[in-house]
């Protein structure tokens, strides 16, 4: 296989691992060494031209060739069968609608979450149940880290340099979940977003880390606490809308479904009730007003909300469809809200996972 990357000949394992730190090629953790054999196996699995490029990765613009992505996937701990998921995630992140350039450089704390759907999630052992945002599962960790390393090494998204995130969050190491599709009464996320049932897909959405929501009881009780948590004044969404993500655990979803609530019903209820008055929002200060003006100038802030009337009730997203709902986690009392970056970008993008031809 003809590869174009520079190569190094090293005999000592420890020396090689340390070299990646010295050269700034890793995110703060040791990596799996990208030997030629491992990288070639990764590329061979997908059967694509190593020099095919998905495009320049912002902000620095390194080309996301299949070869470079394979190197970073090996480093992240992927096996060859994970690589199609990594490629779909990279394609989704690099869609202009996601504004990866902004996501990678903003002072906000958002990180692109990768959500895996379809039979491939179960086949590869992605976690979609207890502790879904946490540790313990190679597929979640390796695919998540592979994408982050690609943004690090090809995009140059490095803190104290182009990555200006004020605080960031631990998802910068790896931020990848699967949706629970078996213990789920509703159609999964990728089907909501236009993919055929039974297909494999990845959705990316730039968001904060999961905020725990004590969410148990009747649908109305669960919605009451979810709506309150979604419209906290610290969220960008409350000031400049955009998109937000709600994660319900399978027991939550089952309770809703048993009482006749569809996912769309939940979404509409949250959109109608997760609101604050303009006077509340204005009390946050003039800077927030300026952001709203910018978003309105850019045509992303709906004109139907009267920004001169202090009693106007402002929603967290422009439409109910901008509230994404995923079912994941253990059967328990907790859900999560993951606010987005606001109207500035990081919007959800879905891409099919292309399995290699057999």
């Amino acid at each position, binding site marked *: 296989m003809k590869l174009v*990357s520079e190569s190094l000949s090293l005999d000592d394992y420890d020396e090689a691992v340390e070299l990646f730190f010295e050269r700034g090629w890793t995110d703060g953790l040791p990596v799996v060494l990208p030997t*030629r054999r491992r990288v070639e196996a990764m590329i061979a699995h997908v059967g694509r031209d190593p020099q095919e490029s998905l495009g320049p990765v912002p902000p620095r613009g390194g080309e996301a060739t299949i070869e470079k992505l394979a190197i970073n996937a090996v480093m992240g701990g992927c096996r060859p069968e994970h690589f199609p998921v990594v490629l779909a995630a990279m394609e989704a992140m690099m869609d202009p609608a996601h504004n990866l350039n902004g996501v990678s450089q903003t002072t906000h704390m958002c990180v692109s979450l990768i959500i895996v759907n379809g039979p491939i999630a179960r086949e590869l052992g992605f976690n979609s149940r207890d502790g879904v945002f946490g540790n313990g599962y190679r597929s979640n960790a390796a695919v998540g880290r592979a994408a982050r390393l690609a943004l690090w090494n090809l995009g140059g998204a490095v803190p104290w340099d182009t990555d200006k995130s004020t605080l960031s969050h631990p998802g910068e190491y790896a931020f990848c979940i699967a949706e629970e599709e078996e213990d789920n009464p509703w159609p999964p996320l990728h089907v909501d977003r236009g993919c055929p049932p039974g297909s494999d897909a990845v959705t990316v959405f730039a968001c904060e880390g999961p905020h725990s929501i004590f969410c148990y009881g009747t649908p109305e009780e669960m919605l009451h606490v979810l709506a309150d948590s979604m419209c906290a004044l610290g969220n960008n969404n409350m000031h400049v809308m955009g998109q937000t993500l709600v994660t319900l655990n399978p027991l939550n979803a089952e309770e809703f479904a048993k009482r006749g609530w569809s996912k769309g019903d939940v979404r509409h209820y949250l959109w109608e009730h997760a609101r604050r008055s303009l006077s509340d929002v204005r009390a946050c200060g003039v800077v927030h007003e300026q952001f709203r003006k910018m978003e309105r100038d850019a045509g992303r802030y709906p004109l139907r909300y009267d920004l001169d009337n202090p009693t106007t009730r402002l929603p967290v997203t422009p439409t109910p469809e901008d509230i994404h709902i995923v079912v994941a986690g253990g059967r328990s009392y907790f859900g999560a809200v993951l606010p987005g970056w606001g109207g500035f970008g990081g919007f959800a993008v879905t891409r099919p996972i292309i399995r290699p031809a057999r």
Partner: protein
Amino acid sequence: MEILVPVWPAVASARAATQRLRDVRGARIALVDDNLDIPFTTHLASLLSERHGAKIERLVKPSGTAPSPRELIDGAATAHAAIVGIGL
């Protein structure tokens, strides 16, 4: 063992300005407004024009969080100098 490098070779850094301004007085200066801190940008524009005699062409980005559109960059490039990166 043979290890493959995960980055591309470094490319040349940004070019230096071909000609630096000696004085802003009378110069046509493109002020690329990120549309984030509007009062600050307005204040800067008035200082440059009223106190220093520059001719300000204010170009407003549609979004402060995405790269400038090509036509805005081309417009700024026709000025004697451009001020960019006015965020918060």
